[in-house]
């Protein structure tokens, strides 16, 4: 039987612009291509700038994971200039990054991912009282009443019968792949709406410390939000109690809404625990330095660093950044005089070489080069990054909290650990991580208050603020595990200016194209791993698996070399 070429472009409910092409055969996906269709060239723009400004530029790589590039950038510069930030600043950054992770994961689950599993229209057929009963059996959340669900259903009814479905237009409603009973659909829709309000509120933690969200402000050497209990314009008891309330609010929602919903919905989609695994290698660089220690102290990270190879959870392989290479065989770039296994980021080149068809085009899968993503490989192997990678590395490293929650999830769903290597596993790992981070924020908050109580209010180290204190040349590496996976920034400073800036980011790993040996990237590999596609014109299955990665395309597409080659090679047309 002939294969059907299927194009999904745009992939919606993600950050940025992603195109997926597959070949379908007998209801299954036989081959897949992931193509990133946006390029911005931010690292070129970094050249010659003040390194203390770099966080603001790189932060604008992505407005969804809005703090991770800023923190990675600050750390890269702090590493280069040998700056140690005060413990309070580490805690504040953890709180900001923690709330980002929690809020981002919840938004991902309800607003970006849920519509792949939840049939909004089916919720109209639900019995609200029955929905209330089910919800109450899952959690003590105060809104779990029949009256509440009835009100939501009426709101939905009014919306649907207006005939103007807005963002729900042309959804795949009624598709046989939707398995939830109407009542669970109604619960999910109610929580979709509640999460919209919740995310707006909890993110105010960023506003308190960073002045705004998206794109809160950071500072090389610490944080700008001074602590003074006796001033109206600083972090004082009023601000602290607001922060505490927000952390509490985040945790309650995660424990009483997100986690129960995840488990309930997953229970209806257990078949997805054997679909969409793909690349069997997982990489985490680690996340959340312990307060009082430094991000360079990789022994004391809350989520540890390491690599899982070939789905083997008995062993964590240490990560060595020297083994990272990037290839461009199938990317719209060219290397000059580079070895076949690609280049380490420090030697990276970026010469865009667009060879694709002239827009508008139809298919791109016949092209040798088909994306703006490079193909990063670790020791020659493709790697998946993200919450699943982090939870697997933590699980295999013996992380108590992770083991307990993974155990709870596997037990409730009655599946074995192998179920983790799947589309469903990816989605579940994100929820596990969210619960743990939300809980951990309480600890960080207590730590911050304890330090203030003991008279430590420092938030900034100004010893190396003045460029006259800097060495003539310096080089630094800043990393963290962002919501979507392992992130690294490399900076080179010469005479007080950035001379080279590089980022290796989560979605480059995950959305990587094939490499010279033909190994597919994680998106591509997951789509051909026991992957169904029942109706090629309603590719809901593709969305499920791709969304389980939480793509962030703007992050993935970047330039590894800030030497300015690009400027001379781009042909400017009118």
């Amino acid at each position, binding site marked *: 039987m002939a294969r059907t070429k299927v194009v999904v472009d745009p992939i919606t409910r993600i950050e940025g612009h992603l195109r997926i092409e597959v070949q379908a055969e007998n209801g299954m996906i036989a081959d897949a291509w992931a193509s990133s269709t946006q390029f911005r060239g931010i690292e070129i723009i970094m050249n010659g700038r003040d390194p203390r400004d770099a966080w603001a530029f790189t932060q604008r790589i992505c407005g969804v994971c809005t703090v991770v590039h800023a923190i990675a950038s600050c750390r890269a510069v702090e590493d280069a200039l040998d700056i140690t930030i005060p413990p309070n600043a580490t805690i504040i950054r953890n709180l900001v990054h923690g709330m980002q992770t929690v809020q981002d994961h919840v938004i991902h689950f309800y607003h970006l991912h849920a519509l792949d599993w939840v049939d909004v229209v089916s919720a109209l057929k639900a019995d609200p009282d029955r929905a209330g009963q089910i919800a109450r059996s899952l959690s003590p959340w105060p809104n779990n009443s029949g009256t509440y669900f009835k009100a939501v259903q009426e709101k939905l009814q009014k919306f649907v019968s207006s005939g103007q479905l807005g963002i729900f237009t042309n959804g795949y409603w009624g598709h046989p792949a939707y398995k939830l009973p109407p009542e669970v659909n109604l619960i999910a829709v109610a929580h979709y709406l509640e999460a919209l309000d919740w995310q707006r509120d909890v993110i105010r933690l960023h506003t308190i410390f960073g002045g705004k969200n998206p794109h809160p*402000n950071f500072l090389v050497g610490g944080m700008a939000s001074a602590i003074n209990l006796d001033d109206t314009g600083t972090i004082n008891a009023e601000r602290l109690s607001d922060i505490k309330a927000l952390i509490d609010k985040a945790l309650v929602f995660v424990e009483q809404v997100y986690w129960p919903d995840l488990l309930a919905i997953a229970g209806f989609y257990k078949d997805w625990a054997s679909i969409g695994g793909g690349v069997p290698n997982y990489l985490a660089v680690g996340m959340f330095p312990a307060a009082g220690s430094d991000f360079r102290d990789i022994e004391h990270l809350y989520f540890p660093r390491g690599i899982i190879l070939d789905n083997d959870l008995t062993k964590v392989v240490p990560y060595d950044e020297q083994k990272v290479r990037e290839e461009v065989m199938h990317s719209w770039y060219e290397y000059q005089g580079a070895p076949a296994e690609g280049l380490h980021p420090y030697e990276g080149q970026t010469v865009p070489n667009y060879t694709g068809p002239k827009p508008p085009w139809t298919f791109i899968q016949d092209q040798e080069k088909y994306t703006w993503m490079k193909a990063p490989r670790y020791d020659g192997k493709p790697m998946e990054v993200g919450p699943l990678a982090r939870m697997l590395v933590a699980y295999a490293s013996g992380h108590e909290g992770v083991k307990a929650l993974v155990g709870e999830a596997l037990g409730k769903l009655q599946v074995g650990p192998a179920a983790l290597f799947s589309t469903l596993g990816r989605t579940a790992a994100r929820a596990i991580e969210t619960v743990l981070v939300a809980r951990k924020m309480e600890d960080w908050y207590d730590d911050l208050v304890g330090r203030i109580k003991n008279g430590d209010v420092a938030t900034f180290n100004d010893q190396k603020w003045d460029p006259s204190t800097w060495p003539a040349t310096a080089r630094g590496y800043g990393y963290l595990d962002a919501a979507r996976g392992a992130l690294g920034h490399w900076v080179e400073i010469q005479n007080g200016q950035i001379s080279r800036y590089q980022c290796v980011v989560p979605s480059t790993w995950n959305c990587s194209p094939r490499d010279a040996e033909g190994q597919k990237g994680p998106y591509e590999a997951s789509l051909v791993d026991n992957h169904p596609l029942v109706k090629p014109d309603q590719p809901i299955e593709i969305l499920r698996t791709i969304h389980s990665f939480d793509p962030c395309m703007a992050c993935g597409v970047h330039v590894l070399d800030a030497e300015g080659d690009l400027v001379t090679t781009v042909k400017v047309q009118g």
Partner: protein
Amino acid sequence: MYFPLTDPWEPGATLGEHLHSRGVSRRDFLQFCGEMGAILGLSSLLTPKLAKALEQLQRPSVIWLSLQECTGCTESALRTSHPTIGDLVLNLISLDYQENLQAAAGSAAESALQQAMKDHHGEYVLIVTGSVPLAEGGIYTTIGGRTARDILEEAAAGAAAVLAVGACAHFGSVQAAAPNPTRAVGVDQIVKDKPVVNIAGCPPIADTITATVVHYLTFGRLPDLDYDHRPLFAYGARIHDQCSRRANFDAGQFVKAFDDEAARKAWCLYEVGCKGPATFSPCPIFQWNGETSWPIGAGHPCLGCTERMFWDTMTPFYQRMPKVSGFGIESTADTIGAALAVGATAGVAAHAVVTGVNRMRHRKEGASGSGGGGPDGGSASHEEDRHGQD
């Protein structure tokens, strides 16, 4: 007879459908419209228009294009508190295309877009986030195989109003910073035949975005704009003139370094590079995220993100003055100026010494030659002048 209480207007039905279901004929309806027009003092020629407007009393269609960008502006819109995003999407507008939120993907999404553009041609509000890369024929951002420019031009053609939301749509933002590798430009560089409202900021405050939409829906016209086409209700005053730390500025009380005593008193951030004096934005008044705080309120200087090309004109962010190109970051205008002033003084002093030496030499020559120069002391130039007249 029509009783509103017993014959409720079904939610979602247009007025036309509602009246039809109540047994009101098209003829009666047009007659009603004519009478209404007469009451409002409208020409009878406008009756069909009025009828159409009343019949189609629906949630207005909004199409949101995401082009070359970081999605921060969509995230910001999600944070709006009045109206909330749920209220906006479910009750106030019909958000017919929004890639980050919509259920459909691929061709289903594209057909939703095409349908909305067709059904509401000339009536929909077009919101654009992201810039348009022009280099190499636009291949740096494509959606569904089409370039950002192509998509924008098509969508703008049928739009009643175009809102360029965020710094990217305003002027290209960070990707348009020097050297602008992809030749990114803002919406108003592409859409020239109709007014483009720039809702500036990186990102703009959520409520500024939604308030502009609400303004259009409520008052039936776009808000008044400033010289850069930003709504005056939000961008009509300078941060510096609305700042909660202005009193410290006037008092001469400045933060000299982050986390110093002055910072812990929330003094003015002017000296650590605050761009409030050059930036028009509602941050101090509207504040961010449900009026929680704002950048200066949280101790960080303003970056000036509502101003065109701020990545180049407002950097370095931690210095008040822009960088002098061609010199290192430390070589600010003042050090160069001071060096030149010292140089000028030194040059003048050296010149004076040489002049003095020359004069002494001439005087000696004069003393041995003509025997004195009278009351004027025989100045060197005097001697020179005599030579000059020889």
